[in-house]
């Protein structure tokens, strides 16, 4: 933690600012609702609903390659800049493969996988296929295996898989955990979308039936271990941005809505919990930039800060969501009100890549040391 200012420089500020303007102009929340909430039917067939044209514009702006190293033709911006950008994706709850692609980028960078990184620079989106059906937060939870040069098995909880071309697969081999780069359109690959709560994302299972794949690394565990803190950072940034939206939207509502001849915000039962939401947003944001800065400035602190960060962010996601609906009262419980879109996205993010308790347990192993037998 060497910098007072996180090295959040002009480029980073400019990037964040343009993303904010981009979404506020092109993707106001009404558009989000229109896009993902046409069909309220409980148990509806899962779909991947997004504005591909806007994603194309984003590709042209170069944002998906913001974290790709220069050696692979990327923009190589520091983690603080990426965090700032992703906050804006969260604030807009923008349905896209941005997080997944950035996550893949960090793994590919750790593996020094130039070819796949070039795919990303060429505009292909990617996602991580590293989770099994159970224990999905551990690094070795995959149920895919690699033998005789082929992948078999099923990867679970693959994020935004309906919007990507490539997946980064972890698979158990005889020796170790290995990583592969797979085109979703390859022979032997089948995709089943899950029916999920979150309307702003999709998620699915990818099954492999003797699939040929491009090997990326034979040291899967150490590559994933290097990348995960940055992946937790991404999800936390998304949560922070979405939570600030929840806060401001709710503040606007309680300033407008009157009961007992007073704006709802007059009542401390409404006011004080919203202050607590603000406090938690700030805690998460401060930890976010501190962690992002540590990636380059104090790498030895990055892991522990990333656990602090995701623990804080996961708690924030749950708390801000609950308060946003409750403070909106009956209106907040309806499909027509926008808060449920963020509520559901946040509940998804809260669990994604580890909930708060899980991250605190990892942090305790670092700061206290493992439990003695």
């Amino acid at each position, binding site marked *: 933690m060497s910098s007072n200012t996180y090295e959040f420089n002009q480029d980073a500020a400019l990037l964040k600012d343009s993303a904010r303007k981009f979404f506020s102009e092109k993707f106001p929340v009404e558009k989000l609702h229109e896009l993902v909430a046409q069909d309220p039917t409980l148990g509806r067939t899962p779909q991947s609903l997004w504005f591909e044209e806007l994603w194309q514009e984003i590709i042209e702006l170069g944002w998906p390659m913001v974290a790709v190293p220069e050696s692979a033709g990327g923009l190589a911006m520091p983690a603080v800049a990426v965090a700032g950008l992703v906050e804006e994706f969260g604030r807009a709850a923008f349905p896209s493969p941005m997080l997944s692609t950035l996550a893949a980028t960090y793994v590919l960078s750790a593996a020094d996988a130039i070819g796949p990184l070039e795919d990303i620079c060429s505009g292909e989106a990617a996602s991580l296929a590293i989770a099994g059906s159970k224990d999905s937060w*551990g690094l070795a939870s995959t149920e895919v295996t690699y033998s005789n040069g082929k992948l078999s098995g099923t990867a679970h909880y693959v994020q935004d898989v309906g919007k990507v071309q490539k997946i980064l697969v972890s698979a158990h081999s005889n020796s170790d955990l290995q990583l592969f780069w797979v085109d979703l359109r390859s022979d032997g690959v089948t995709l089943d979308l899950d029916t*999920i709560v979150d309307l702003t994302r999709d998620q699915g299972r990818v099954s492999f039936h003797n699939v040929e794949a491009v090997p990326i690394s034979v040291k899967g565990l150490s590559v994933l271990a290097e990348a995960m803190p940055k992946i937790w950072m991404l999800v936390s940034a998304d949560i922070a941005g979405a939570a600030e939206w929840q806060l401001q939207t709710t503040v606007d509502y309680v300033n407008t809505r009157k009961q007992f001849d007073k704006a709802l915000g007059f009542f401390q039962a409404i006011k004080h919990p919203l202050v607590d939401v603000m406090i938690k947003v700030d805690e998460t944001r401060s930890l976010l930039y501190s962690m992002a800065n540590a990636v380059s400035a104090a790498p030895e602190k990055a892991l522990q800060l990333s656990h602090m960060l995701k623990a804080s962010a996961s708690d924030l996601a749950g708390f801000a969501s609950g308060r946003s*609906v409750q403070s909106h009262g009956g209106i907040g419980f309806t*499909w027509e009100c926008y808060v449920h879109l963020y509520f559901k996205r946040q509940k998804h993010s809260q669990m994604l890549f580890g909930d708060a308790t899980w991250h605190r347990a990892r942090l305790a192993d670092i700061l206290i040391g493992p439990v003695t037998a």
Partner: protein
Amino acid sequence: MVDMQRKDTSEQARFRDYCREWLSEHHPGEPEVRIPQSPLEIMTVEQMDYLQRWQKSAYDGGLVGCDYPVEVGGGGRKDLQRIANDEMLRARTPYFPNVIGLGMAAPTVLYHGQDALKQRLLPKLFSGEDIWCQGFSEPGAGSDLASVQTFAQKSGEKWIINGHKVWTSLAHFAEWMIILLRTDKSHKYDGLSYFVVPIKSALGNGVTVKPLIKMTGETGFNEVIFENLEIDDSFRLDELGRGWQVAMTTLLHERGAGDLHVPRAGGLKSRSAHTSNAMSLISLAKELTRDGKRVADDPIIRDRIMRCIIREQGLSENQRRGRVTELLDHPMRIPLQNKLLSSEIAQEIASLAIDIEGAASSLYVGDENAPAGGQWPLAYLNSYGMTIAAGTSEVQRNILGERVLGLAKSK
């Protein structure tokens, strides 16, 4: 299970035996359709038909309304509804669909209606043939219920109603509505009067019912719009301008704090939906794993499940202590906690279930791999309906602080 029977009077004991016998013959069996988590989410005619048939059968059997006078279609007995409820819970019957009728309309009509009206309305309410709904909330009147604006204009012996009610559960099935109306614009509280309104017969003719969709994707509640609906003055309950006092009778019973024991069945869902109580979290945690171990072995999850179980047990013991006057302070202290606690405990339970499920909590109803069929995320979303509807938790705490602790009014 609490075994209530040792303290039965001999009349109660006989009635309990009768109920058991009757239920062994007349339990409607497993439903052929999916039954939602509560009657407020009934969406289809098939669901409603099945549940209405069951309520009618239970009424004919004498298990519904036993404590009401014979003249209004009741059983004319005393303190027997509780016995019937015990036994229906034990027998895991479905719930009754006419939940607003039984829980809110019936006591209000009984205490405030004229004899002719009671005799006309209550028998079909008990039997479930007439479904009831409640027209209290409006777009501008939520927590501040007394600010309702839907107006009834006197016109001879008739009233002409115009206005807009919201969050009206079951309105799409309802024959009747209990309604709080403004009859005088110059007084906030004393300008309110209370009526019953036949809405199904007026559909398209002064009444429009539009379904609202919940954040879960389910329907179940509605907007109800009144445009020059004409009703008779005989549909008024109690005096003109006493609507607020009548509404208090309704709300007390809604919050489980009324003196009439509400007919209640509903053990079925605890078998079918697995989302009813804290004990069901134990089996969920035993089925799922994390870091290679059963979630049920995680000390933090264990601690949190125990917290829920203790709260739930405490709430149920509250009911029991509520019957021992020597151990009570203020008479409303325990009853007024019911609604607040049951909704908040349900929310805490569902929230914990989601944490137990972890990544799998992303999977919703309809996903074949969702633990417990995705019912827990659904229950968590629905829990906000419970902490908001029928007086938000914030309003409940005001009521407890003001009426029970005697603190200054917050508004």
